[in-house]
């Protein structure tokens, strides 16, 4: 009994304390840079001002192809490899680039999706395209949004609000 107590005192307890200290220190030491919200933007004539994450998934997966005003949805994506695109693939599609490509091609092949998204290289390109295309929807960093497009609330939250779920690593 005494031996067990000594073992606990000399070995187990210090190890637990050390582990607790390491665990407590770890977040401060390797804390990831604060993520930046990713804004979902549409043309300003779009009657929608709020969308659920589930509906956003349906839109981006090609399962929903029309807006409430009957206009066809035109998806806008950033170039492969961009953090914004990675964030969308992860959040809305739940897949990586290869699976996304295969899945979308298959959706087109089966007739479920109307066509591939418009792929644009820069945030400016995204904003410009959405500005020009009434049925377009895309995404840019919240800091890159300007007044030429409309930012949608997602599940009731605007970018930067607590509970907003679309985020991208800082540039």
């Amino acid at each position, binding site marked *: 009994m005494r031996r067990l107590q000594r073992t606990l005192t000399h070995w187990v307890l210090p190890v637990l304390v050390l582990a607790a200290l390491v665990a407590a220190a770890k977040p401060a030491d390797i804390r990831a840079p604060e993520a930046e919200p990713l804004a979902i933007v549409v043309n300003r004539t779009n009657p929608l001002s709020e969308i659920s994450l589930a509906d956003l998934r349906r839109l981006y997966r090609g399962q929903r192809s029309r807006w409430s005003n009957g206009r066809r949805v035109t998806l806008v994506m950033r170039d492969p490899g961009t953090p914004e695109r990675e964030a969308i693939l992860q959040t809305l599609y739940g897949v990586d680039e*290869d699976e996304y490509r295969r899945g979308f091609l298959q959706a087109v092949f089966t007739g479920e999706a109307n*066509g591939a998204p418009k792929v644009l*290289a820069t945030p400016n390109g995204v904003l*410009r395209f959405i500005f020009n295309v009434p049925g377009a929807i895309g995404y840019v960093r919240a800091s890159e949004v*300007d*007044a030429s497009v409309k930012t949608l609330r997602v599940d009731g939250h605007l970018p930067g609000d607590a509970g907003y779920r679309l985020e991208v690593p800082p540039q």
Partner: protein
Amino acid sequence: MHLAARALCLALVPSIAAAQAETRYPATQQAQPRSAAVATPDASRYLVVACPTPAGTPSASLGQPADSATRALVAALCARAQAPAGRPLYAPLASEPARPDTEAALAAQPPEPPEAAIDLLMRLAEASAATDASMAHPARHADQDEHGDHDEHAHDALRSADEKGSGEDPDAPFAPQFKIHLFADMKYAAIDTVGSRNGFSLGQFDLFGRSELSDALSVIAEATLTALPRNTFSAHLERLMLTYSPTDLLSASVGRYHTGIGYYNTAYHHGTWFQTATGRPLMYNIDGDIGVIPIHTLGVSATGAVPSGSLGLHYLAEFGSGRAGQASAAGTTQPALNDNNTPSMNGALWIRPDAIDGLQLGVSLYHDRLTFSDTSKARNDETIAAAHIIYKTDVLELMTEGMLMRHDPRGAGTASDSHGYYAQASRRFGSVRPYARMDYLEIPKTDPLFAFLGRRFGPSVGVRYDFQPLAALKLQTSHLNQTTRPNMNRFDAQVSFMF
């Protein structure tokens, strides 16, 4: 006429300048311009100019050469926008103001645009809608990326966004653009049954195309070339569908399509690159592999979403020709022409609940009336019921389907019930995806069409390696127990790709 156009254009300049003086982009936001020449409700056009920051240099919109005349125009318009209201905004057409040489001089100039600038304004205002859309966006600056306005994609396969179809210029007339994808596969097969030959073979060459005829009308066409023994090929028009999709609730098609029985038959078809395994499950074999399901239908179909909230309910209704008249065996299951008077009907429902991303549950019911080349045989009612559970995520793929097929001679004998199922599981580790599948198909001896197949079942295991984004190598070994033929073991190595 030309003078009138000039006057109209000049008349619009003050409204732009005044709007820009209030906020940064109000005029462009309200009018939704699509190009340099912006349509207004009264069908007139005006030009949007991005004024530079105070520290910046006045410049033309990107996509246009920033010659001195352009800079002069931009500087004049921006200076006018920042000027107090009430100043004259344009000069009489007949006037001929002096032209400054420098931008500094421009800033000090009266705001009337010089004649050369007016000419430029007219030229831009009358430019076609095909002008670089960058000119329309107010936030665009010449020093920003020069590639931002393209729709380039690293992979051509995904670069199929139809400019017209996407609505980038919705007022422009539709011009059909046929997008083609090609699929192909080659394989090496080693089979241990007597009479089988091991070796390489071409698989199926699949030409798939899609075209947008209008915002709601599209065409899908798919043709295949399949390699046969003795260096021959069979050509088939597998699909040809004209589809009208006015809303998400209805997508109506006419033509030849994949029958919506179960899941696999519509999710995977001729492009083997899409499939995880080298081939289709036994119950969904195509005619060349002695399939039992009428995998194609010639007729009309309607599908769409049912408003059901988080349940994600969808429906499908098909009315077509079904199996060919004179159906005597599997080889006649896909008619190119409707040659009997007994249409087939098929209905399906499936859900994709939001609560479990990647899950799909569905059922389908197919009915047809069969006639036979052997006229002594009674006509049969054919009913095929199928159900599926699919769970697919980025990593995991779990698929299982069951099918019950009844052939009922309508009082001339007892009905025969065939059934089949398969279960397939795979998990992805990077580019490698090992998989396993169990197949089962049982056809009773009393079945009027497929009795010769008997019972067939067995496992398949394999691995798929996506060595390139659009190409995969699959290695698969299978064992098949058969009651009407010798059991079989086989190994397949297949390269499948799309381009």
